[in-house]
């Protein structure tokens, strides 16, 4: 079994008809324009032919086989652009976050005023802060669309089960980052949201309250908590970045799904220039959407109570998390039992792990599954209203 598994055909890069390496024919020089010319010639005659290896250098060959000549189905729609968009959102958050952390003070006495200092005194501080805050919301919009695409087109089905699982892990990391990040401005919502979520740990029998005091670093949420949340918030995105590489590796092992759902790979085009330009266009549209929020409605997704400095002795009337957590919050509040509510809330996200393994359909695309399509649309409607 292992011997059959060791040949190259289980890896999309080496088994794709578009990239098989002919022996003895090597291009000694690499240039993008002559590359494109080659592409035009080969596509013009529509050959299921071997393209020569472009570079003898391993590093460039690696980049070439994963980003330039990577075989991608020709039928991908813009729904497939959300993946690269999510990667770009991560970069946006990391860059804006790093520049924010140059001026932010993770101390309970200084945090709120340091954020105001950034908004008022630092040059372009308001821009960086709004980019980071609204960028988090954008990140969730993009990732939710990405997950929706995966569910609708059956991208979680065999042979992409582990790709889906790595995606759910990424989602959990992202939620952890968003949660710890929201605590940092130390507004009323920051403090009380942190209190509510960290107190969930008390549901664990016997050791619950000990664990929560360990988590808090004290008897309530105070400076130790803020300090460690800042560290966690800074650290988790690097885990996300690493897991993204795993996510991409798992993807490149089998290749992208497509709206047609057949994985034959006969209708593949190279990633560059086709999907590079498509993703670039999708990015432009996304940036316009993002810029509308940053420049015209920067606070519409934020809660006004978070502009009040945190007061440990007064809970706001309407404690709500950010919009991207509202669905899970509704599940938590919908069950009038402490343990039940918490289990239901985490369970509703953890059930995502199970999806590839409880699937019994042989058809990927929901368009061709009328019964499933009805329930899919129905549950989408329910979740929205």
């Amino acid at each position: 079994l292992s011997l059959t598994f060791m040949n190259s055909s289980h890896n999309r890069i080496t088994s794709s008809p578009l990239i098989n390496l002919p022996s003895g024919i090597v291009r000694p020089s690499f240039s993008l324009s002559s590359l494109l010319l080659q592409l035009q010639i080969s596509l013009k005659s529509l050959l299921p032919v071997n393209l020569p290896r472009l570079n003898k250098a391993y590093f460039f060959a690696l980049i070439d086989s994963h980003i330039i000549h990577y075989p991608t189905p020709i039928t991908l729609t813009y729904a497939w652009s959300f993946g690269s968009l999510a990667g770009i959102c991560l970069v946006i958050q990391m860059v804006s976050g790093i520049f924010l952390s140059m001026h932010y003070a993770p101390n309970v006495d200084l945090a709120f005023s340091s954020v105001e200092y950034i908004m008022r005194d630092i040059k372009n501080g308001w821009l960086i802060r709004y980019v980071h805050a609204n960028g988090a919301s954008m990140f969730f919009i993009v990732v939710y669309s990405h997950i929706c695409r995966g569910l609708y087109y059956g991208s979680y089905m065999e042979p992409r089960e582990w790709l889906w699982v790595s995606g759910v892990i990424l989602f959990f990391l992202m939620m952890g980052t968003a949660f710890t990040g929201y605590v940092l401005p130390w507004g009323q919502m920051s403090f009380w949201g942190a209190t509510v979520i960290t107190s969930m740990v008390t549901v664990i029998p016997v050791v619950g309250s000990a664990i929560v005091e360990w988590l808090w670093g004290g008897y309530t949420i105070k400076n130790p908590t803020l300090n460690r949340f800042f560290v966690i918030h800074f650290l988790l995105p690097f885990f996300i970045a690493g897991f993204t590489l795993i996510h991409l590796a798992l993807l490149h092992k089998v290749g992208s799904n497509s709206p047609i759902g057949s994985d034959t790979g006969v209708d593949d085009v190279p990633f560059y220039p086709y999907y590079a330009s498509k993703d670039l266009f999708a990015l432009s549209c996304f940036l316009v959407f993002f810029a509308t929020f940053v420049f015209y409605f920067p606070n519409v997704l934020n809660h006004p109570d978070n502009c009040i400095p945190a007061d440990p002795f007064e809970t706001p009337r309407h404690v709500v998390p950010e919009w991207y957590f509202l669905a899970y919050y509704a599940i938590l509040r919908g069950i009038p039992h402490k343990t039940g509510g918490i289990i239901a809330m985490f369970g509703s996200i953890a059930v995502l792990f199970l999806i590839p393994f409880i699937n019994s359909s042989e058809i990927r695309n929901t368009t061709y599954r009328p019964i499933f399509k009805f329930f899919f649309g129905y549950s989408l409607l329910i979740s929205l209203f």
Partner: protein
Amino acid sequence: MNAFRLANRLVPRTMGAMRSSSRILGTTNALRHLSVPATQTTQALDQLGSVDHEYESTRVDRVAEPDRRAFTYLMLSSVQFVYASAARLLVVKLVASMAPSAEVLALAFGEFDLSALEVGKTIMVDWRGKPIYIRRRSVAEIEKESQVQLDHLRDQEADSDRTIKPEFLVVVGICPHLGCVPLPNAGDFGGFFCPCHGSHYDVSGRIRMGPAPLNLEVPPYKFISDTTVLIG
């Protein structure tokens, strides 16, 4: 495009022609050796019914319609200019955010009242986080400093060039040697003495003895009244 390449494109390709052309051109275009003439494969794939010839049919011939290609280039280059502007904007905004903030700039000036300063005494004030010595000098001290020959100085500056009102000396209290704060009214020259490595400064703040290479720095300042100085 050179005429030879044009001729190649217009003539139907065969294996022989391509091999000879690439030999003549001297290109090491490996793919040309491999490609099968277009007519054979498209015939086979056409029968599958999933091939369109959009690529060939919509292709703009570079020679026949030079203006259309120019339009495409114009479109692309203008959009690429927008991308470049966005990248520039990103870099400029982020780099600018690391510059001194409005708070720091607001604290960049300091006003100090010198009416209580007695002759011969030195006070130290905080300006931009740096210690500033202000010394009220007597007429005799001013006279003595103005008579010092510049040749004797390591850093040649006349006393009149270092003060606006000769009565008040305003210098930054940081030794130009390695950054320690000199002691006022000390040293062999009656001015300042840096205890770290033994630099002696005179009443004009000029280095007279010791390892410091330069005189004590005179900050930008002006008098907004007879006894009020604005530093910065």
